[in-house]
């Protein structure tokens, strides 16, 4: 993209759409990682205990 020129509305709207999509994709990847990390690093006994409490 030409950084020195004023971008047309169609371009900036596509940046808006792609930008938010990109952030959400990275976010979901991070969430899945956290969930996985929590599962892998919490002892099975503790997980069962908290499950029973709930």
């Amino acid at each position, binding site marked *: *993209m*030409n*950084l*020195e*020129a*004023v*971008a*047309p*509305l169609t*371009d*900036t*709207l596509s*940046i*808006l759409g*792609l*930008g*938010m999509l*990109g*952030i*959400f*994709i*990275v*976010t979901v*990847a*991070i*969430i899945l*990682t*956290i*969930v996985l*990390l*929590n599962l892998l*690093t*919490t002892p099975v006994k503790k997980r069962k205990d*908290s499950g029973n409490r709930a």
Partner: protein
Amino acid sequence: MEAIFQNFSNLTWQQVVMWCIGGTLIFLAIKKDMEPSLLLPMGFGAILVNIPMSGAITQVIEGAKEIGVLNVLFDGGIANELFPLLLFIGIGAMIDFEPLLTNPKLMLFGAAAQFGIFFTLVAASLLGFPLKDAASIAIIGAADGPTSIFVANYLHSNYLGPIIIAAYSYMALVPIVQPPIIKLLTTKKERKIRMEYTGNSVSQATKILFPIIVTVIAGIFAPRSVALVGFLMFGNLIRECGVLGSLSDTAQKVLANLITLLLGLTVAANMQADKFLTLQTLMILGLGLVAFVFDTAGGVVFGKIMNLFVKKKVNPMIGAAGISAFPMASRVVHKLGLAEDNQNHLLMHAAGANVAGQIASVIAGGVLLNLIVK
């Protein structure tokens, strides 16, 4: 005798206006406690660089170039993005990600509250700013000073000074800017929604692996964000590893304070009257507000949409804490929750969304650069 007074003739009214602006920044820092660690050095710097023939900045006198110390600091610390990145180590060392790690879905609020960045990009382009400046102005919505400096500088924006002032000023004004928007977009019933806090602890291994993995994920998707995310997460790794207590303390206090001190003064190198007193500066201040308003709205509306699909309702106000301004945004949400119901404690949820916003704003900066710099 004439030699002593000759500099008076070089003084312009624009420079006097800049002294007043500098004085105002110092007043706001001291009397109103608005981001004093940055606004005070910036205010003093604004006066320093607007003294006619100021030796603090580079001057060409009779064809000879005299290098000013603020330009040396600018070239050595901001032009190469060093200061904002070093500051991120300190910020990373200050952040406790535990509220986010115990409730990872809060990360979504951090993502949604970046909407203002991209909306402002559209608005700034419609107002006639070239793409590099529109993107630099839009990143004010990251509500994160170092990210704003990094992106604006990366894109060689002509408006670095006003952008940084807007970013830090609106961060300080979060308690004034956010409540009316939150109230406008939520009902009394929604603001009263209570959220259970499980208080589950997170293992040390998770806390250590989290910054490493986030760096890798963000780096793969948005490689230009690696420096920002990496330095932020490196700071957090120092904090959480458990064996570098003194380094963590140094990063949180000495390093962060030292860089902040130099950053404020150095940014002022870009606050010379001829560059600063323009219509564009006013437009940038206006667009900065737009960015914060739509960030807040993005987070709150996302919370409302989420409630359409989940069993356990979330209080949509915590979406507003998804902006990066830490910890002001989470305090605002907590206070609004208590104002509706004095037993509704939202602080931990809001803090989780708030630290998520810290990560998401950095990722947003990287994604934005990826999209426009080919």
